[in-house]
């Protein structure tokens, strides 16, 4: 069986639309030996893998990893958080390989333009065997360079206007996906497409 390439996914979804539950399912499905969730604070929802339809996930804890431990970490699901996200990004860029990496709530620490480290993180995923997820709350808050360099766009409902989606990304597939997800009757609906 041929190994697949690694993927970068941009996940966009409004608050309360089930992004975390979706990501927890991805964490459990991923074949990679390491799974790391990056956040700016100790988000209680990431302390275990419980989801709306998997209460047993509460028994699967997601411990905290410190930056000092990162170079020696070999497997398992961990999370890392802190307000100094530049330091975290540097350590991840330097040490992380073979990992499903989730940049939770990336809106808070990914600006309009990517820094050199952020670019390396984004572009070197295949060389490091990293499947990366960049999570944003809306198209309006999505870093364009991240989406433009993602392989996959996963979309949940957002509060964006279609005109903004058209104007900001100029990709008919993205607009179409946006329309479909917006029109879907299930508020937790999720759809993914290859965008590159």
């Amino acid at each position: 069986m041929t190994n697949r390439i690694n993927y970068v996914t941009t996940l966009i979804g409004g608050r309360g639309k089930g992004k975390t539950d979706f990501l927890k399912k991805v964490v459990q499905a991923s074949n990679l030996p390491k799974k790391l969730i990056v956040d700016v604070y100790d988000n209680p929802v990431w302390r275990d893998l419980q989801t709306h339809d998997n209460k047993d996930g509460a028994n699967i804890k997601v411990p905290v990893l410190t930056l000092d431990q990162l170079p020696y970490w070999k497997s398992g699901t961990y999370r890392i958080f802190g307000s100094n996200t530049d330091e975290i990004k540097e350590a991840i860029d330097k040490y992380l390989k073979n990992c499903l990496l989730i940049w939770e709530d990336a809106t808070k620490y990914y600006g309009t333009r990517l820094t050199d480290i952020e670019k390396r993180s984004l572009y070197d995923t295949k060389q490091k065997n990293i499947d990366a997820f960049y999570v944003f709350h809306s198209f309006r808050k999505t870093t364009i360079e991240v989406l433009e360099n993602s392989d996959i766009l996963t979309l949940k409902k957002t509060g964006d206007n279609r005109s903004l989606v058209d104007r900001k990304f100029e990709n008919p597939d993205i607009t179409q996906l946006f329309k479909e997800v917006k029109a879907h009757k299930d508020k937790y609906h999720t759809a993914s497409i290859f965008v590159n």
Partner: protein
Amino acid sequence: MSSLLEKVVLTDVLSQPTQTRTEEKEEIETNFEPQIKQDDFSPHLEESLNAIEETKTEIESEEEEEELDFDAEESAESAIDIIDVIQQGIFTPVSFIKLQKRFGGKDRINQLKASFIKKTNGEEMSKEEEAEAMQYEVFDEKIKEIREEIPFNEVDVAALKPSTIKYCERKGIDVNENLAIGAGLVKVLSGRLVNILMI
């Protein structure tokens, strides 16, 4: 809903194997004992991790509570509003004055306006006055364009917001409710002030 888009089942895709990359052993200074610097994530290391995690979680929770004592996003929105007010307050009158000069100065504009009012009232006008009224319409149109161009639009705000949120978080800048109300008030009042300045 029917769709031509080819959808991906992400959990299926990501469950497929990938090419594992070699991880170098990094010899760096850490708080760990040398014996736990090993390739595998041993139970010994896991215990250490869990012990450290508990302490770390407590400490960082306190730190984070302190740091996230305010909503950085709200602060950023208020800060952007304030910046918008300032830049409107600066650029609108400056642009108005420049435009006024281009049309011959304040007295000339008053003259053009008088002809325009005459036209609006349907009074009898000379050819020169008709030309002046038209010039005033052009001037008025330009002013409208400037007024629409200067304030931040949705895209400007979207571009500014992530970095402003980040800045507010890092620097602990809390644009509190009073200031936010103040910013809103200043925004309304400054609009009126600019109108008055441009009369």
